């Protein structure tokens, strides 16, 4: 190739064939294409049921009479008159509040253990993750046996160590605790199982947050003379707070809207002592056949959850920007 031709080639701007630019470069089109599956998913599996629920809540639809008649807020008035509803609402807040505090605290402690450097840490990580990987129905059934009114191994251990079963023992002279039969113990049991189930997830999220903190910061604090608790509360916790807040939000909504543990362990009993809004909605709407009331109960928490989600997400944003 002569020098002249080389110079010419260099001067002419090379235009790529139009076909090669057409598809991959149209980011607008691509964006829509890639977003479509999730949009469809949300519309079909979240949007439609949500609209349906609103529709049902304002109607007199029942399993026996599916014809749609608009009744306004009558369903809401009726559930407000029902003491079980208020009991369920209270239980929901107790269940969620106590669970979340325990899950966040235990999750942080477990996360600290998991990031520590010691021999055999892989087996600890494995054991911590185990509850999360077990299907909830399966593990709840295992717990059902653990908490059985007669054959509970926990009771057996308590009897062996002399806390239960004989007159004057600390936990009483009866041969069993009836974990799921006593109102207070039933709630404690349900909370324990739920905490047991969700803590691993919280721990893993917190661990990710902890590992994202540069090691330098912790070391700088040590050189600056800060002890363990000051480092924990002034350096580590503020820096994992955004992550922890998102984990807590997720956990809260999950706990508010989950009835698996309650359903398997107590089915809301004894005498509605562990009834939460979701299980009550299911009981009224599906088991009891009053679809309108079930929908009204289920929708009751929606505005509260929405407000809480927005508040937490905004707080997290402010923390990150600030």
């Amino acid at each position: 190739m002569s020098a002249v031709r080389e110079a010419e080639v260099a001067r002419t701007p090379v235009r790529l064939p139009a076909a090669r630019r057409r598809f991959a470069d149209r980011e607008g089109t691509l964006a829509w294409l890639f977003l479509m599956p999730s949009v469809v998913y949300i519309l079909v599996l979240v949007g439609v049921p949500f609209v349906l629920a609103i529709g049902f809540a304002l109607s007199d639809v029942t399993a026996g009479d599916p014809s749609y008649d608009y009744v306004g807020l009558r369903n809401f008035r009726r559930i407000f008159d029902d003491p079980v509803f208020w009991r369920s609402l209270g239980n929901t807040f107790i269940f969620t509040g106590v669970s979340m505090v325990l899950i966040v605290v235990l999750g942080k402690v477990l996360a600290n253990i998991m990031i520590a450097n010691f021999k055999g840490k892989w087996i600890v990580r494995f054991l911590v993750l185990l509850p999360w990987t077990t299907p909830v129905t399966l593990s709840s059934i295992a717990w059902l046996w653990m908490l059985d009114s007669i054959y509970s191994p926990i009771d057996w251990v308590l009897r062996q160590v002399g806390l239960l079963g004989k007159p004057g023992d600390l936990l009483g002279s009866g041969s069993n605790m009836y974990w799921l039969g006593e109102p207070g113990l039933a709630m404690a049991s349900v909370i324990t199982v739920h905490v047991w189930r969700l803590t691993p997830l919280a721990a893993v999220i917190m661990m990710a947050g902890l590992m994202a903190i540069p090691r330098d910061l912790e070391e700088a604090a040590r050189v600056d003379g800060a002890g363990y608790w000051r480092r924990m509360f002034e350096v580590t916790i503020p820096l994992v707070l955004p992550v922890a807040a998102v984990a807590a939000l997720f956990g809260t909504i999950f706990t508010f809207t989950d009835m698996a543990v309650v359903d398997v362990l107590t089915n809301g009993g004894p005498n509605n002592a562990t009834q939460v809004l979701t299980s009550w909605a299911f009981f009224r709407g599906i088991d009891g056949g009053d679809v309108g009331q079930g929908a009204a109960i289920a929708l009751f928490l929606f505005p509260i959850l929405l407000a809480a989600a927005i508040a937490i997400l905004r707080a997290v944003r402010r923390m990150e920007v600030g």
Partner: protein
Amino acid sequence: MAAEAPDLRPGRTVVEVRGLVKEYDGGIGRRARGRGGVRAIDGVDLVTEEGEYLVLLGPSGCGKTTLLRTIAGLEQPTAGDVLINGQVVTGLPPRARKIAMVFQSYALYPHKTVLANIVFPLRAAGMARPERERKARWAAELLGIEHLLGRKPRALSGGERQRVALARALVREPDVFLLDEPLSNLDAKLRASARDELKRFQQDVGTTTIYVTHDQVEAMGLGDRIAVLSAGKVRQVGKPMEVYDDPADTFVATFIGSPPMNLVPRDDQLVGFRPEHLLPESAFAASVDREKVPLAVDRIEYLSGDRHIYGTVTGIGKPTRVVSRLPATVDTPVTAGETYDFAVARDRLRFFSAETGLRI
């Protein structure tokens, strides 16, 4: 601070390390493959004096950071002792050592304001609020960052962050500053002025400083003394001029200086001389006792007024490629492809053992 410390006695040792060894076990993978640990520090003895600026200089991976962290108490030595003010502090946590450290990343607390960053060590020490605010303002004024006190670290430039980190180190009034490559995150232009500031700052406060760097220009410019490290061992400790003019071995000779010292094999020795001492015959006064060497020039570079002349010398020992640096004041014409008569003053020659690399 110098004024507040009445027992300022030049010659008093502040930091001393004795026979320090630090071995990392290298993790499971390494152990499984049957390899031992990494010896990051391999028997280091060092002493600093009150008010001294000691620079640890060495290539990347030679153990400088590990040595500094061991002095700080962030790592426990495998063997040996660390002494601060004559007391053995091996095994004590960092906060019991009266040291302050500036990390390579500065490690400012990102969620705290500059003021909160600076007072953090004072709060940890339990100082009352008015007292610590006064201290923080004093440090901020000294470093010219009063106008930044309300900001968060992410709103600061690299140079400002460095000053905040220094202020945070300063307020504790430590016995020694430990600085780990504090300039390496700054761009080249800022680095020169920050180096200047660091030196003036240290002269103002007069606190003993151990400064880690891999940059020989920083080391030569800042250090009262330089400790040259390689592979976990101290090769030489001395004033910048001593380290440059009288290197203890071939590692120091070739690590320091740009271009490095020329080494020419002769029998079982290596003959060393600096590029700026290899000059054309005509540049010497007649009385100077010198060794004549013919230089076959093959390449010439012009660098900031100097001429770097690359060629092969014969006559000293085996024919070897060397560099000569001619300052602008030597205007003898030199062209590539020719052979010229060059010379080195005899008192500029340094001799090393070819076997051990040590100075003879």
